[in-house]
């Protein structure tokens, strides 16, 4: 296989770069080692579009987040991605020291060009968020923060690239990079070699490992772990804005934020870890997040019960804490997009634009003429919940699958699931379906719809139910048919738990 630009990593950055470059007459291949796009850092984060009010505008990430804020609304409109912006945020303080910090943050926000920021007194604060802990005294309101569905956003970017001719190769891991005369010429993958003129390293947590393949090793990605709670939709009315807890000595501040779909997301702590696969949640951290942030801000939110799930995200923080977006110093044709931690989701369009500049500067004889039949958008998937009852009836008449509800918690139809399996980036496992259409995302977490979704996947993909996975590779949901397991096999491992 042969291409002009090879992008490593199918997170929001890789997808944004593919989307950005797909407008030109370039051959583009994006390789992703997981079974779907949006499987790493882009998947597990606060799902916020940061305004940049609390970020140092002189850093690269500060500049990019502010630049991205100017284009993201139009981008989401073009791609038909749900975005709530502006939503606004309130930083909440309990101590007088918090007020001092808020004043500084406000000055910084104004310097970054955010208009309409306001310090809130205790009465104003509780008028705006009546369910806040009554002890909360100070507030800093900032109007520009937004929220997005990160899966939809990443998938939409990748789908648009595919619509415009880019190839997305899933389950494809880069094993090595081929260099000739200090110039990259291709990659070795588990699925064979791909020749290319340019490599974009958007490998997230593994960006340092990929960079090391061209010996561009002046940075290291240190994962920083954060754990989250996701609450049932019945708590949706507990808040209106994104709520930040004031930063303390031990924590940079946590958030309680509504999601696009009406749940409440709360977290996260920050813990440096060594293992890039350490996605474990721990009772200790969850207790700490709950006590120090969630219940401190909103005492009504429970520790258990209405929690739909808890999860961990790993931020791909670099050693210097800023984004690293630059050409490799060691070879030609290799560009890093590394160290993209928060606000990477927000900054993605600006990062992609910057990468385009770097690709052009590489001067590798690429055709940057605009694609003749370029599509700037994509057809949004049918989402029944967005339609009026009459529109749904018309649609069901055309395709009865839209009248068969598979996921009862989220009211997701068979038609929507079938669509997800057959879109430009196909959803081929249980979690991919969940991220695309929310089947299994609700309060029963797939308890009822799981077997049905598995059946649909098996039928549509033409595979045995035994081959259907939770999230790709060896994450099989089922292990054998009834009566297939020999009793001997059970006997051989007959140990029981004894105390």
């Amino acid at each position, binding site marked *: 296989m042969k291409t002009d630009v090879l992008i490593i990593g199918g997170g929001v950055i890789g997808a944004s770069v593919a989307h950005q470059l797909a407008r030109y007459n370039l051959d583009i291949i994006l390789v992703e080692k997981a079974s779907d796009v949006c499987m790493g850092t882009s998947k597990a984060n606060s799902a916020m579009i940061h305004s940049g009010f609390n970020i140092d505008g002189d850093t690269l990430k500060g500049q990019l987040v502010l630049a991205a804020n100017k284009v993201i609304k139009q981008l989401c409109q073009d791609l038909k991605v749900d975005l709530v912006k502006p939503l606004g945020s309130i930083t909440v303080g309990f101590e007088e020291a918090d007020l001092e910090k808020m004043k500084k943050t406000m000055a910084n926000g104004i310097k970054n060009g955010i208009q309409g920021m306001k310090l809130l007194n205790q009465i104003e604060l509780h008028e705006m968020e009546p369910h806040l802990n009554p002890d909360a005294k100070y507030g800093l309101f900032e109007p520009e923060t937004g929220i997005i569905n990160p899966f939809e956003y990443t998938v939409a970017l990748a789908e648009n690239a595919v619509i415009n001719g880019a190839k997305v190769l899933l389950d494809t891991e880069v094993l090595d990079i081929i260099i000739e005369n200090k110039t990259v010429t291709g990659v070795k993958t588990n699925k064979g070699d791909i020749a290319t003129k340019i490599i974009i390293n958007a490998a997230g947590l593994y960006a340092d490992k990929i960079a090391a393949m061209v010996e561009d090793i002046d940075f290291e990605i240190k994962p920083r772990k954060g754990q989250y709670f996701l609450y049932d939709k019945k708590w949706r009315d507990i808040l209106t804005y994104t709520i930040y807890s004031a930063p303390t000595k031990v924590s940079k501040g946590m958030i309680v934020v509504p999601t696009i779909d009406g749940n409440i997301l709360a977290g996260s702590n920050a813990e440096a870890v060594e293992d890039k*696969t350490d*996605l*474990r*949640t*721990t*009772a200790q951290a969850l207790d700490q997040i709950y006590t120090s942030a969630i219940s401190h801000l909103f005492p009504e939110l429970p*520790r*258990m019960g*209405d*929690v*739909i*799930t*808890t*999860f961990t995200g790993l931020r791909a923080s670099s050693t210097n804490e800023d984004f690293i977006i630059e050409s490799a110093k060691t070879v030609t044709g290799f560009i890093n997009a590394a160290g993209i931690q928060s606000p990477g989701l927000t900054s993605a369009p600006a990062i992609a634009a910057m990468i385009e500049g770097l690709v052009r500067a590489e001067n590798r004889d690429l055709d940057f003429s605009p694609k003749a039949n370029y599509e700037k958008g994509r057809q949004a998937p049918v989402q029944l919940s967005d339609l009026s*009852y*009459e529109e749904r*009836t018309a649609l*069901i*008449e055309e395709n*009865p699958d839209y*009248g*068969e*509800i598979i996921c*009862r918690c989220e*009211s997701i139809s068979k038609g929507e699931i079938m669509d997800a399996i057959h879109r430009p980036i196909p959803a081929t496992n249980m979690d991919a379906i969940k991220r695309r259409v929310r089947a299994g995302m609700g*309060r*029963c*977490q*797939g*308890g*009822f719809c*799981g*077997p049905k979704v598995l*059946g649909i996947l098996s039928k549509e993909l033409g595979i045995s139910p035994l081959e259907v996975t*939770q*999230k790709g*590779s*060896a*994450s*099989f*949901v*089922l*292990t*054998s*048919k*009834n*009566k*297939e*397991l*020999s*009793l001997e*096999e*059970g006997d051989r*491992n*007959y*140990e*029981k*738990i*004894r*105390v």
Partner: protein
Amino acid sequence: MKKLEYDLVIIGGGPAGLAAALEAKRNGVPKILICERAPYLGGILNQCIHNGFGLQYFKEELTGPEYASRFIEELENSDIDVKLGTMVMEIMVDKKVIAVNREDGMFQIDTKALILAMGCRERTRGAITIPGSRPAGIMTAGTAQSYVNLEGYLPGKEVVILGSGDIGLIMARRLTLEGVNVKGVIELMPYSTGLIRNKVQCLDDFDIPLLLSHSITEVHGNERLEGVTIAEVDKSFKPIEGTEQYVSCDTLLLSVGLIPENELSNNLGCEMDKVTRGPVVNEKRITNIPWVFACGNVLHVHDLVDNVTEEAEIAGKAAAAFINNKKNEVEKEVIITHDNNIGYVVPQHIDALNNQEQTIKFFLRVRNSDEDVRLIVKDNFNKTLLNLKKTIVEPGTMVTFNLPREFVTKDTSSIDISISKEQAQ
């Protein structure tokens, strides 16, 4: 949008919905419609292929599908309408129900009365926040039951079960019979939360250990589950340091409680009981909305389907009376209170002036196991109405009793139920 008209709409075609529909029919309701989301009637009974159903109601031992089929056959010989594969999306305060299916699209049903019989769902891993990684191989016991009994597939080879709820116990036996090594059942409480007969017949008979006062403190594995860490817990359910034990397994089944599925009822504005998580009802199973009735697991979680049937018949009969223009408003509300040893009592209130029934049936759950206790029922004049001996009470088994209607007078304003040893005579 298509419009239909019925006298009575029943949401759910499981045991509660079926029995309620038949009883309403027997009591003269002309046009009845059952809306069922699955492509078949019978609800979860269809995946309960084990026996033990119907001992109380039919005085014989049936499997789940057999129990359901008794009602389905009777229904087929009636003129009750059924819409399968039909999901109710919304109930409106002006007695309109919005539903959807493949054939009709979205459609509206105008009704005179409604019975909620949507059943319950299982608590998930998230609801009890078990820490650790998030591999495949973790599911609720009911989901596993559906895979094994309806689809014919096994979820794993080495299984640990968290929670000793009845579905978990039943699945321990079911999987063992399939050759799966069920390594043990881990229970947080110091007692089994399922029926005693299930503990005996599903665990003891198959030498499957039950570890009481234990919990899972971590899940291991990235793609497929590799093992769990279990630990003993203290009286406040905190893991005791030093008691951790790693258990390898490829599957974790959760049987950690059931939650009535009341999203529709909540959106409609039904008053809810915080403990049962179902609507607050009176002895006729009427909710705070006079044309809405509730029965079965959507009202409170039952351990025996026989009780569900009995309760559904109360609701079906009361709905029929309402539709046939009998008075429905509670004329003199009698509040039911209970002591701390009791978790909840259904119904939560009764009508002092309702004289349709000879006896009022109460369902309750105790908080803690005990032996040789007395169940005492008193009215607001401190008069003892009932004093019943109970050899054994435990949270996993619902306690029921009948209160003769004549014991409730027009002056009764509250009835208190208690369970204790002290008052034993």
